[in-house]
């Protein structure tokens, strides 16, 4: 069958205790796998837990429950030095706002080399510089940029620095949390193309977290749809878009604005109200639809959705 997935997430739970009587259950029982060299898109509305999942995987949060296995190394529970080093070097993250995530008081070369510094991944100062310059080339920045500060760059260039910082560690998985949402349309496509080019060259794996479905559709091989901390539907991009089953997915897809005036005027968004629809995510189980396509449903819901004619997107 398939080779061992690069990342396996099993029943991940992430709760945040606010006070004695109130706990936010941001992620509830989420399981998925990411295969080597693919792009996995996580989509959902704000508060659905998509960013939390990314941050729990890379251990910015300590997961409440569940297992995360990355590259054959168990990352749940207490990390020993070896696992920690494996995680910090082989998995990297790109954040949404490149202005907020780059230290304004450091030069680009030092920002990019920070990971190398922490893990002593170079032999000499010369080697360090060479590594940074090579990465700058790769992300489409020039060598002179290394001595500048973040504020001297435009938004798109800053995001390139963010990507360079992740790439310099030569990771096998990059978590891109809304990495293009803050950029202008014409710059978004530049960054997406850059990420795709790098993937072709290095077979790197992306976990792409976003709310912009049209971009997710373009970049992802497989998609997971999140709602209220539950993964309600997952499958190959084509499967999800051609035959969405879960009412939430259908609602989400119907809301994508299309750049086609006549079609946009005819279509209207399908509302979804999970309280009114009577769907209780906790009661559902993940059920197999076809191929790689799975949906979270109870038996009755599953039968009903399967019988419904395929919705047009």
């Amino acid at each position, binding site marked *: 069958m398939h080779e061992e997935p690069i990342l396996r997430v099993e029943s991940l739970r992430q709760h945040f205790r606010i006070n004695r009587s109130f706990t936010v259950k941001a992620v509830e029982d989420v399981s998925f796998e990411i295969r080597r060299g693919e792009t996995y898109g996580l989509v959902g*509305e*704000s508060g659905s837990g998509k960013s939390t999942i990314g941050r729990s995987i890379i251990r910015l949060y300590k997961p409440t429950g569940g297992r995360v296995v990355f590259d054959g190394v168990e990352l749940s529970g207490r990390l020993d030095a070896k696992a920690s080093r494996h995680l910090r070097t082989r998995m990297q993250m790109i954040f949404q706002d490149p202005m907020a995530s780059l230290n304004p008081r450091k030069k680009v070369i030092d920002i990019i080399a920070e990971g190398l510094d922490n893990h002593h991944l170079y032999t000499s100062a010369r080697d360090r510089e060479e590594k940074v310059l090579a990465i700058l080339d790769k992300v489409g920045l020039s060598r002179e940029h290394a001595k500048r500060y973040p504020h001297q760059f*435009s*938004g*798109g*260039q800053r995001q390139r620095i963010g990507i360079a910082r992740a790439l310099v560690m030569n990771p096998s998985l990059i978590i891109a949390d809304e990495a293009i949402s803050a950029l*202008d*349309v*014409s*710059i*978004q*496509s*530049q960054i*997406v*193309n850059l990420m*795709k080019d790098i993937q072709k060259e290095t077979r790197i794996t992306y976990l792409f977290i976003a*709310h*912009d*479905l*049209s*971009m997710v*559709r*373009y970049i992802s091989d497989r998609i997971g749809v999140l709602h209220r901390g539950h993964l309600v539907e997952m499958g190959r*991009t*084509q499967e999800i*878009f051609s035959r969405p089953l879960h009412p939430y997915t259908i*609602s*989400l897809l*119907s*809301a*994508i*604005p*299309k*750049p*086609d*005036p*006549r*079609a*946009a*005027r*005819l279509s*209207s*968004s399908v*509302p*979804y109200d999970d309280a009114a629809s009577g769907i209780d995510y906790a009661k559902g189980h993940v059920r197999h639809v076809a191929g790689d396509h799975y949906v979270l449903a109870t038996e009755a819901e599953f039968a009903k959705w399967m019988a419904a004619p395929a919705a047009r997107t």
Partner: protein
Amino acid sequence: MDTPTRERILSIRDLDISFATSSGMLHALRGIKLDLFRGETVAIVGESGSGKSVTAKAIMGILSSNGRINSGSIVYRHVAADGGAREYDIVRMSQKEVRSEICGKRIAMVFQDPMTSLNPTMTIGRQIMEAMRYHYGRSRSEARTRAEELLALVGIDNPGRRMRQYPNELSGGMRQRVVIAIALSCDPDILICDEPTTALDVTVQARILELIKDIQEKTRVTVIYITHNLGVVAKVADYVAVMYAGRIIEKGAIEEVFYDPRHPYTWGLLSSLPDTAGTAERLYSIPGNPINLLNEFPGDAFAPRNQLALNIDYRLPPPMFNVGGKHRVASWLAHERSPKVGLPVELRARIQSMLSENALDA
């Protein structure tokens, strides 16, 4: 759509604005001409720094203090209930006059982030009533009745209870509805929506856009959308103006611009959107970065990023060419003596497939 009784409500002529910044004069708007008619929706599209928000702020008379209007006029025509018309040139009004006559009263604005545009220490009700009491001197009870009507209009249930709540008790979509209710509280002629849905989720975004459309049908308010999302534009606008580096480079009726774009920048924008079929191997991207507005340039600001730039593009800024209907384009490619360059092949194919798909639906 084109009725003979289109009533012009706002006309912007040759608007030219600079900002004094620590690194010199930033020439943000470089001669804008735009007309607005009652009950219609115009979308101003552009990237950050193209001048779309500056245009909106100039219309509202709320430019920041380092802004300077070098030339031009913004004439707003108000028709009172008794039929008497009065014209105001917003550019020449003092800040005090703008405050009492225009801002919030005749022209209202919905901002991007509903959390920062609502006052967290005031109840929803008081915030909606505030403008009515200030501009029209309505009594408290009158204003309250009207505020409840407005909340119902924007689709908030149980208005009486919501009036007593604070912004933090509402969800993002609900807050944006409240902001819209506040904007509508003085029956404005023009509603400016500056990225009204960027901070909201897609599902909520669709509902807010549908709401604004409904309200427009009921109240005949003129709506200006400021956005960079072409999907939003396609859904709501009657007319589009595409801005680049402080100029309008293409404008026209929505179908003219989306189905028959003429400016290379518009081609780039439309091509860089992911294909609706999601099949293309690579996204088109416009090479380079927008120019720095601190510098002056003699020709077409888009020329350095334009693979089709002509020699003249580097020397002379293109005038607005009339390419039929309401369609205008500022590109030398539209000149009769320029080489005939058509749409990029992929974009042409995409537009073809959109049109044929729509024909099937109809």
